[in-house]
């Protein structure tokens, strides 16, 4: 069985994330890493591999992004993925949801032509843009069922069943492979790479693909070809420092009550 797990390289959320002049995210100056929410996707792929030894599961970690994005693939390999694929091309910079999902879909098709892909596993959302739409766009483009936002994943043969929390209900959803699966941070702690894993990762196969390798025309993607245009990005003015009081013998509750009353909340 063949699993492709999607891993996005994102700027560190605890750093000062910012935009470039053209309103694309500064992905070069700011330290980046594998999106933490994609670690859960890698984890689920590895758990399946361990649970189903007879299926000889191969886990491929796929990223689309600049040179540095290779770090995301490396981390997945250290965790235990078998091989890595990095789609990198200057023309991809500035792609929106439609462009990004197109590149990912074509890359997956290319991998599938070599060996059919049974499962595409993704995170629930990236930690930078947090669109939470790329997995579904992939399902649409690849004409595959989606079982998304899984908090629990179960498989049997080619059947996948997941539990997912929507706004109004908890649902159990089922579909037959091949399919696109996205998992949430409720799906189970992701493992840390072991020392052995880190050493082993250095010898794992890594493939680099350009747009022409996956059959995408450079004019179809990137900032120029995007379906959306950012016109302005403004940093929020720093919040004016609020009033902070120390509670002493009930004074805190009193002051807070006065504040809420002054704002007409009570």
């Amino acid at each position, binding site marked *: 069985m063949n699993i492709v797990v999607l891993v996005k390289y994102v700027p560190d*959320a*605890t750093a000062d*994330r910012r935009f470039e002049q053209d309103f694309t995210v500064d992905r070069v100056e700011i330290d980046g890493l594998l999106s933490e*929410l994609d670690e859960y996707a890698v984890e689920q792929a590895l758990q399946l591999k361990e649970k189903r030894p007879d299926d000889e599961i191969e886990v491929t970690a796929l990223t689309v992004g600049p040179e540095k994005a290779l770090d995301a693939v490396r981390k997945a390999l250290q965790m235990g993925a078998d091989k890595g694929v990095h789609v990198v091309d200057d023309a991809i910079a500035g792609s929106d*949801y*439609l462009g990004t999902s197109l590149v990912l879909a074509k890359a997956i098709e290319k991998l599938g032509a070599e060996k059919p892909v049974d499962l595409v596993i993704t995170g629930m*959302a990236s930690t930078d843009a*947090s*669109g*939470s*739409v*790329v997995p*579904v*766009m992939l399902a*649409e*483009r690849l*004409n*595959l*069922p*989606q079982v*998304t*936002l899984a*908090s629990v994943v179960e498989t049997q043969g080619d059947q996948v069943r997941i539990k*997912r929390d*929507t*706004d*109004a*209900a908890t*649902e*159990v*959803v*089922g*579909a*037959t492979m091949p*399919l696109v699966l996205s998992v949430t*941070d409720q799906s189970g702690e992701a493992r840390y790479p072991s020392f052995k894993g880190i050493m082993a990762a250095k010898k794992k196969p890594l493939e680099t693909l350009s747009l022409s390798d996956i059959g995408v025309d450079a004019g179809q993607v990137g900032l120029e070809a*995007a*379906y*959306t*245009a*950012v*016109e*302005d990005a403004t940093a929020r003015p720093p*919040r004016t420092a*609020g009033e*902070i*009081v*120390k*509670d002493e013998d*009930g004074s*805190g*509750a*009193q*002051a*807070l*009550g006065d*504040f*809420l009353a002054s704002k007409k*909340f*009570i």
Partner: protein
Amino acid sequence: MSEVLVLVDFQNGVVKKPTFELLTLAKRLGTPSAVFIGGSGDAAGVAESVKKYGAEKVYVIDDAQIKGYLVAPKAEALQQLAEKVSADSGGLAAILIPSGAETKEIAARLAVKLDSGLITDAVDIAAADDGGAVATQSVFAGNYTLTGKVTKGTPIITVKPNSAAPEQADGAGTVEEFAVTVSDAAKTAQIVATQPRQATGRPELTEAAIIVSGGRGTGGDFSAVEALADELGAAVGASRAAVDSGWKPHSFQVGQTGKTVSPQLYVANGISGAIQHRAGMQTSKTIVAVNKDEEAPIFELVDFGVVGDLHTVLPALTEAIKQRKG
């Protein structure tokens, strides 16, 4: 003016408030039409509700043959409707969809189907000078505000709850049944079981005007948080630490991997203010915190903060509010 399609958010027999917010925003762009995907029996009630907020038409897509499947059939239905309306009236101004877990997925599939741009999680929409729609997003945990446009196809925009104050307006509310043909390919992910969320008796997190939240600092005892929430008529929220500890179900979680909220007042208790928590609440109008550590990062955001123990401050506050009310 061109039509603007607004997907109705209908749950437990009622049209939810975000629908009215979207209709209000839609009026800035064109003529609002509501789209209701659900049981035909509910259509009259839905039409009654949405016409009060300016819906001229109410397209009803009977869900009998698509119920029980995940997302894809709904996207297909919307695609067919959008193409029909567009062909009949020479173009759609926009398609507005409430931001929710399922509805965002519908929007995503629809964008690919219609080969149109998608903007997610808008917090405001305005008409552009050239007639298009300008959407505002709040990103990077509320640290940046972006404005942008869809430049290809029909603008599809998902809008967060609480993004506009619903304005009443008289609409004709003319009901039009719309028949769809759903492909077998769209019926591949089946909903095997559904467990509706238990009603808490409190306002819903994403719609509430006031939210009182608790974190690890509650030590698992949410009684003081809940008592204050009830005194204020507020919803109860929780940090991931509180959810991971099993003190509250995941549906209470505020933050990057929980709900994004934007109430008038957010009261954070025993919550340190990690970036992922901020991502879900930083756009709240007024922020208040109670935390016993004066160095807690949450204090950088607050309009008013109390350094103290929530187990003494909250009950005293609840009592004080009771007395003020007399």
